[in-house]
């Protein structure tokens, strides 16, 4: 089970099927939220997540593909594209230093 401490998160990958639509939208909202912690947010097609990725956010329907592309990353699935608890959980883990798990 990949896990990471919130204080070690330097980069978050937002993934969707094509890496052009919904991931870009979620990335721009997350970027605004995480910029103050010095965390970089980038978007990517789910099959092209970089191997060195540590934290990946993607829709639950794509989580299996994300995990197999990046087996060492903590994959955090979300259900809705706006106001999902996963977004809050990630920000909280980074700000309060909690541990995240796949």
């Amino acid at each position, binding site marked *: 089970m990949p896990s990471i401490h919130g204080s070690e998160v330097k980069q978050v990958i937002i993934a969707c099927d094509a890496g052009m639509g919904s991931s870009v939208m979620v990335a721009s909202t997350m970027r605004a939220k995480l910029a103050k912690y010095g965390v970089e947010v980038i978007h990517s097609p789910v099959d092209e997540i970089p191997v060195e990725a540590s934290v990946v956010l993607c829709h639950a329907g794509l989580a299996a593909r994300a*995990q*197999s592309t990046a087996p060492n990353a903590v994959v955090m699935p979300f259900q809705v594209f706006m106001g999902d608890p996963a977004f809050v959980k990630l920000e909280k883990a980074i700000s309060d230093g909690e541990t995240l798990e796949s």
Partner: protein
Amino acid sequence: MSLPDAQVNKNREDTGIGAQVQRVGRFLSGMIMPNIGAFIAWGLITALFIPTGWVPNENLAELVGPMIVYLLPLLIGYTGGRMVHGQRGAVIGAIATVGVIVGAEVPMFLGAMLIGPLAAWVLKQVDTAIDGKVKPGFEMLIDNFTLGIIGAGIAILGKLTIGPVVSWFVDRAGNGVDFLVENGLLPLTSIFVEPAKVLFLNNAINHGVLSPLGVEQASNTGKSILFMVETNPGPGLGILLAFWLFGPRLVRATVPGAIVIHFFGGIHEIYFPYILMKPKMIIAAIAGGMTGLFVGVLMNNGLVAPPSPGSIFAYLTFTPPGGHIGMLLQVTLAAAVSFAVGAALLKFGRGEKAELTEEDVAAERAGAVS
């Protein structure tokens, strides 16, 4: 986190086949989607300057042919090759694509999607086989000549055999589409397309299958209704409106923002979670999609280029002159029907178990945290 973990593992097993299907679809759509900007450039020039366009201009319309015959298939073959074998794969994919372009009489989108990755795969096998066996100093010579020789061979093969075969196949596929349209069967595709969309096969279906067939058709007739099968923003709009007025109280607040992103931004993914939350709502999506296609077939609607993303602005841009009333009816009636069906479904659900609905959503959202 014991329970959510178990749930995630279960979900992963369940999506095993789904993930495979998504991957195949992603491979097909992945050749098209990075090149959509080029489709839009071609679509704008076509919509403006062809004889039936907004400002017919014979001189500028000369751009249309080379763009659809050479530029777009070459970009697809190049991208398909790159997906298999990086930059070398991209180059040989483009070389091979020229073979099928010249060997066929119709624009070779499907041919490019086939031969681009295939040529790259062949080169990859050869590169792997000779890896480490080349004498130092001869790497560049060998690299360039293996690519050149295999590329030339596959281009010839494409010209002589694959191009004509794919050409024949595209003709049959085109006839199949015509058959569906002429017999009024096209609306039935919604029964398959709408559920597949929500399972994140939207790009696979649209750009993997419908866009290439649509471009072939549009290059003959100036427009295609295949561009409107998956991309109609109407059904999603109706569903979101139904959720806004009749959905679980907890999610209603998020709906107006979702409507803007869906209908104007064209990111359809935003409404999928609402359907996944209440799966019976897929019936509303199917009803809306079928209505839209029924109106579209009836009014002989079509778009000149793939509207991507599926925003109302892309629809307005790529509707040919004189087609706007039909297009707006298609979108509006699709939205109205999916709203009506969706509203009825949500209301029935509440009548049965008014207390449970919000807890259901809360539970699902809790599950999402895992």
